């Protein structure tokens, strides 16, 4: 492999590290992500895990690139496997020229498995780890060294990364990891991968610092930055990271995180807290969202500000806990008994997770209602290089709350007063003469329970009118591609990056497209309907089996004959090539129909 003349700058590098759960694949990917980001590249990482602590074939994927990419690429440049089964599983994706590094402690891979042009390196990581450290725990650090040499990372750079990464875990652990790294470098020498060579030109740089952050963490940060100071939740994959992140940082800003005994408690703790005026959020997934429905309806009926993050996973029931799906839109938009006002925002990129959650936090206060932020497992748990967040874009405003002074200036205070925009100013407990009765029963302006038909209708209409009055404040869609193109895409969450790259591939095929990325899913904004009307065909790409978004648009007035559904609900990631092929086959069929008709 000593071919310095072929060292190339990284344009688009895809690396998979795979093994049994507990092998440390994620750690290796995280280390590589750090190193590559510090080399001035942007990275995107994805994990494919099962819902258990150890065991089962798991993998993590890393893409490092120049420019903008928001998903994993279609090819593999380097596969590092702690388990030969992982190579079997990925064999088809390994093109000529790709590199496989694997742990051969349990034997070599079978002859003929891989394309003869795939370069294969076997080394006994686990055996070396057991021999040197009496346990195989450090085999991933050994493997990292070999992968680093293959890629062309300088030894010093790898060591410096280890020192930073493992400094927190104690001197003994750091020492073992550094020893393992040295062992790995020696193994690399034996394999003919000497220092200073390798495939790529990867040089550390400090000139452009970026965040490497998951959607879940970005959303948590967005909530904090918008003044969010209370979070109650119950651990559930894949949304737990939101609670974990806030638990680390919120107390520094005077906030509180409480883990409840179940989702029923979590949502009601959140509601109780929100009544005191603190900006409040919960986050959940799958079954947790079903359990929270009654509480979210309460927030709607009693007009309690609340942000709910739903990191969607495969359903129904327990479903696919670690796999992405976008099958909760119907539940978010129509869920709960009776009719109440709620809004649903849907990020596409990791940056969106920050800004939209911050906005949701502000809007929940301004309109006193539940606001959903709809993520999915992939957007929530994959991490991406993002530009530093711009905190000046985050609005924090306490309107329409009345202070004690504002209450004192009034002759009368009514918690649920009828107003022009449907929003009644509220007070917080502790405010003299600002007392209220808050209830999910139908109530009059003071909050007294009332079943009087006239009042009932007026209160229903008042709450519903907020969905109209908030429209100017709702986030508008992201727009990409050729604005004159007649073929459109619509998709949110994890489809974002795939659609953007599929558009490039389609352009290469001579098909011009544009992408409308709705950030407000509910209410459906006019801009969405106008976009569909402006196209000849719109591919609505969704991770569900019933076309929930497409049906929503049609229900709200879009021409259904223009919509082509692209539906994915097998738990696997939609490959760029898969989407391109689907669009091409539709377009070819459409073209043939047109020609035949002519």
């Amino acid at each position, binding site marked *: 492999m000593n071919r310095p003349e072929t060292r190339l700058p990284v344009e688009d590098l895809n690396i998979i590290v795979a093994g049994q759960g507990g092998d440390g694949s994620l750690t290796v990917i995280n280390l590589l992500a*750090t190193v590559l*980001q510090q080399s001035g590249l942007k990275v995107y990482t994805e994990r494919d895990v099962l819902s258990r602590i150890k065991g089962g074939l798991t993998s993590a994927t890393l893409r490092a690139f120049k420019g903008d990419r928001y998903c994993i690429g279609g090819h593999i440049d380097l596969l590092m496997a702690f388990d030969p089964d992982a190579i079997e599983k990925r064999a088809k994706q390994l093109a000529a020229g790709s590199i496989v590094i694997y742990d051969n402690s349990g034997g070599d891979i079978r002859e003929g498995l891989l394309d003869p042009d795939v370069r294969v390196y076997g080394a006994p990581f686990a055996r070396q780890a057991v021999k040197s450290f009496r346990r195989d725990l450090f085999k991933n650090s050994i493997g990292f060294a070999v992968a680093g040499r293959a890629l062309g990372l300088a030894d010093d750079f790898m060591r410096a990364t280890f020192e930073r990464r493992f400094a927190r875990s104690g001197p003994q652990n750091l020492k073992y990891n550094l020893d393992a790294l040295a062992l790995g470098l020696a193994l690399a020498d034996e394999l003919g991968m000497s220092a200073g060579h390798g495939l790529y030109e990867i040089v550390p740089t400090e000139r452009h*610092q*970026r*965040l*490497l952050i998951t959607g879940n963490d970005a959303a948590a*940060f967005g909530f*904090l*930055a918008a*003044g969010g*100071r*209370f979070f*109650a939740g119950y651990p559930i994959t894949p949304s737990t990271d939101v609670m974990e992140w806030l638990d680390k*940082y919120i*107390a*520094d*800003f*005077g*906030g*509180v995180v*409480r883990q409840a*005994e179940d989702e*029923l*408690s979590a949502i*009601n*703790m959140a509601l*109780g*807290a*929100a009544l*005191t*005026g*603190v*900006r*409040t959020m919960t986050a959940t997934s799958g079954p947790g969202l079903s359990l929270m429905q009654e509480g979210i309806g*309460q927030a709607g009926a009693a007009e309690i500000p609340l942000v709910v993050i739903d990191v969607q996973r495969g359903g129904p029931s327990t479903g696919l806990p670690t796999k992405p799906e976008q099958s909760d839109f119907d539940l978010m938009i129509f869920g709960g008994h009776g009719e109440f006002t709620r809004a649903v925002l849907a990020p596409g990129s990791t940056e969106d997770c920050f800004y939209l959650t911050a906005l949701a936090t502000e809007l929940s206060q301004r309109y006193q209602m539940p606001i959903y932020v709809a993520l999915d497992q992939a957007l929530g748990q994959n991490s991406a290089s993002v530009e*530093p967040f711009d*905190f*000046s874009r*985050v*609005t*924090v405003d306490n309107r329409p709350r009345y202070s004690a002074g504002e209450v004192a200036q009034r*002759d*009368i*205070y*009514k*918690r649920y007063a009828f107003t022009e925009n449907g929003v009644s100013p509220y007070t917080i*407990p*502790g405010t*003299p*003469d*600002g*007392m*209220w*009765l*808050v*209830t*999910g*029963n139908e109530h009059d302006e*003071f*909050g007294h329970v009332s079943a009087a038909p006239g009042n009932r209708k007026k209160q229903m209409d008042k709450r519903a009118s907020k969905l109209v009055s908030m429209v100017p404040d709702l986030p508008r869609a992201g727009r990409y591609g050729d604005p004159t193109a007649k073929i459109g895409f619509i998709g949110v969450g994890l489809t974002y990056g795939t659609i953007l790259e599929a558009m490039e591939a389609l352009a290469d095929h001579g098909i011009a497209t544009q992408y409308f990325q709705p950030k407000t899913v509910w209410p459906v904004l006019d801009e969405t309907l106008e976009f569909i009307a402006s196209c000849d065909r719109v591919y609505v790409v969704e991770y569900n089996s019933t076309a929930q978004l497409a049906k929503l648009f049609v229900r709200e007035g879009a021409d259904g004959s223009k919509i082509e559904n692209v539906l994915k609900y097998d738990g696997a990631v939609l490959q760029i090539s898969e989407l391109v092929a689907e669009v091409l086959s539709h377009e070819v069929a459409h073209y043939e129909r047109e020609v035949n008709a002519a």
Partner: protein
Amino acid sequence: MTTTFTPSRPYWCAGCGDYGVLQALENGLRQLGIAAHEALVVAGIGCSGSLQNNLSCYGYHTLHGRVLPSCTGAKLANPELTVIGVGGDGDGYAIGGGHFMHTLKRNPSITYIVMNNATYGLTKGQPSPTSLNGFENNVEEDLDPVLLGLSMPGSTFLARGYTGQPAQLTRLVVEALRHAEAGKGFAYLEVLSPCVTYNDTYREWRTAVFDVEQDATYDPNDRAAVFARLLQCRAERRLPIGLLYRNEHPALESVALRKDNGPAALVDIDSALLKPRYEKLMQSLMR
């Protein structure tokens, strides 16, 4: 002076025990000088779940069974508030039973008054968790929530009153409020509050109650002795009332909240002011 809602008159049946609870709570708030605007009364669903409408405090009518999580959230968000939960036996022990156990375990400084009438009055007389075996075809044993409370290591205040003994009831309400106001934790007060329409237990309870405060040998600080005594009462079909158990244990808000932080509900969240601190946090996350 700003006018806000006028407390409504109770809609309970004449003779309902809940009138006595309302009176005792009004007395307690007055005796301790707790201002209406400093108290949040959280009520569940059921006949008892309308009590907040009859007071002039901040009142929140929560979902069925969710009095305790609502109270806990409010207290953690603003520990300066007096937070009082009120509800029935169905609300607190059936649909909300899980929260009862976890609130005892957590020990937040809130007062919780359960109006136990051993039936579902509002839905016309179905058996509740505290109904006796045999009541309305009930084949289950009745739950004793005080025994449950005794088994929870975090319990700090377990009391039972009876609306037929109003003076003691007011005393117990005052004790409960004091316990919570002093930040000593969860003040649980069950009140035997008969439903005159669907389970009129005045006659049975008048003779069954056993006031432990009249017994000089009763020591509310001795968990094992209290447990034995309560089991004995149960065997004798007697209902112990009074301050049944008292213990010291750190209150939730004293251990779950960061010491030097003020109430989360009142913290300054001005974005211009905090921007440098958010920037600093972000810098620490950069790679």
